[in-house]
């Protein structure tokens, strides 16, 4: 069975849970920007949680089915239609051969996940089907979908139509969005007033935000503790001797615009990092539109670990809800 792409949307790509294990070689972890939404979509259609699905950002694709199958759409709030008739999101839906899936305007959030029973059956590259567009790796020929593509779909098992993930278990960023941050190794590089202003100020998602990184504007510039730059570091006070960049780390080039590194980020470089967004909040970033007002909240390691445990329980609740 296959899915024909009538309209590709803006940047629709095949994503699974990513390819951890190659970041030290400069290959990003990749995978869905909102992993909870991807897992939920797969569970709804009876797939393994990590099966490959489609991630569409801001604009939904238009797809035609070549055989009867079962699908689910999760993530952002974007009206979905089958043959023009509106259908619920976060729900197992039956579609018939020849039917067309299309979408209305995005209402809130940023990315939808479209799962098909059997999963998207593109070749596995370095352990994953995720598309890393800059590296032309994985996914459908290493690129976002284009009109006329025929996407191969695997053979699915039975899935009960009509199941849905309850509203209370769906996660979208608030307004303002709040991202919890654990200060990092380079915290001492900024002055006390900047250690405070970063968390006190209001920020907004910049339009450049994408799968590599989310850039923010609007807060006061950071001022750095004076020092003689060490050998190997660039001359700007925001430069450091090159270091590893963790997933979720926040670099602030020139001290002006924080950038949170996300799934397709570079793995290292010479910008200081103020800290790291906790793992429990990374999925929320995937649902943030440009101009979303955002605040950063300072947390301790204990709070971060508790948030991670809460997040694991939320996933368990999703699993039970669609079982």
């Amino acid at each position: 069975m296959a899915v024909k792409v009538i309209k590709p949307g803006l940047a629709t790509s095949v994503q699974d849970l990513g390819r951890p294990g190659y970041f030290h070689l400069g290959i990003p972890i990749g995978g869905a920007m909102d992993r909870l939404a991807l897992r939920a979509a797969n569970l709804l259609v009876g797939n393994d949680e990590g099966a490959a699905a489609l991630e569409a950002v801001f604009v939904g694709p238009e797809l035609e089915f070549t055989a009867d199958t079962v699908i689910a759409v999760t993530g952002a709030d974007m009206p979905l239609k089958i043959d023009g008739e509106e259908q619920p999101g976060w729900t197992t839906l039956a579609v018939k051969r020849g039917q067309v899936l299309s979408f209305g305007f995005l209402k809130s959030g940023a990315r939808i996940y479209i799962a098909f029973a059997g999963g998207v059956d593109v070749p596995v590259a370095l352990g994953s089907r995720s598309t890393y567009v800059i590296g032309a790796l994985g996914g459908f020929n290493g690129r976002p979908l284009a009109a006329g593509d025929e996407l191969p779909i695997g053979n699915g098992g039975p899935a009960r139509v009509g199941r849905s993930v309850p509203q209370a278990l769906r996660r979208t960023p608030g307004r303002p969005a709040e991202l919890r941050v654990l200060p990092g190794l380079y915290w001492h590089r900024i002055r006390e007033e900047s250690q405070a202003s970063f968390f006190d100020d209001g920020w907004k998602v910049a339009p450049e935000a994408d799968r590599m990184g989310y850039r923010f504007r609007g807060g006061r510039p950071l001022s750095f503790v004076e020092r003689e730059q060490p050998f190997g570091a660039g001359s700007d006070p925001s430069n450091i001797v090159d270091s590893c960049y963790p997933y979720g780390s926040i670099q602030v080039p020139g001290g002006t615009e924080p950038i949170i590194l996300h799934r397709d980020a570079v793995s290292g470089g010479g910008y200081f990092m103020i800290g790291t967004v906790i793992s429990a909040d990374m999925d929320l970033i995937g649902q943030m539109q440009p101009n979303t007002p955002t605040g950063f909240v300072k947390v301790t390691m204990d709070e971060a670990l508790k948030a991670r445990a809460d997040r694991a329980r939320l996933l368990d609740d999703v699993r039970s809800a669609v079982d």
Partner: protein
Amino acid sequence: MSKQETRSPLPGIFYRKATPDSPPYKNDGDAVAAGDTIGLIEVMKSFHEVKAEVSGSAIRFVVDNEDAVMAGDVLAEIEG
């Protein structure tokens, strides 16, 4: 007179000109043909053209140059 709304398909920044030094694609009151570019939306480091879906005798913009827009926001009204 019928009025058609042209909506932004994307969230981002709306521009009425191709470059800072170019004239606007359309001025208020200009006639438009379906398929004419009326502006650009900047998002994710790229620019996407917004095209008029209908022809009309006069266009009126309701969003300013460089304003932030959400998907579905009305950018302009076109009078038939």
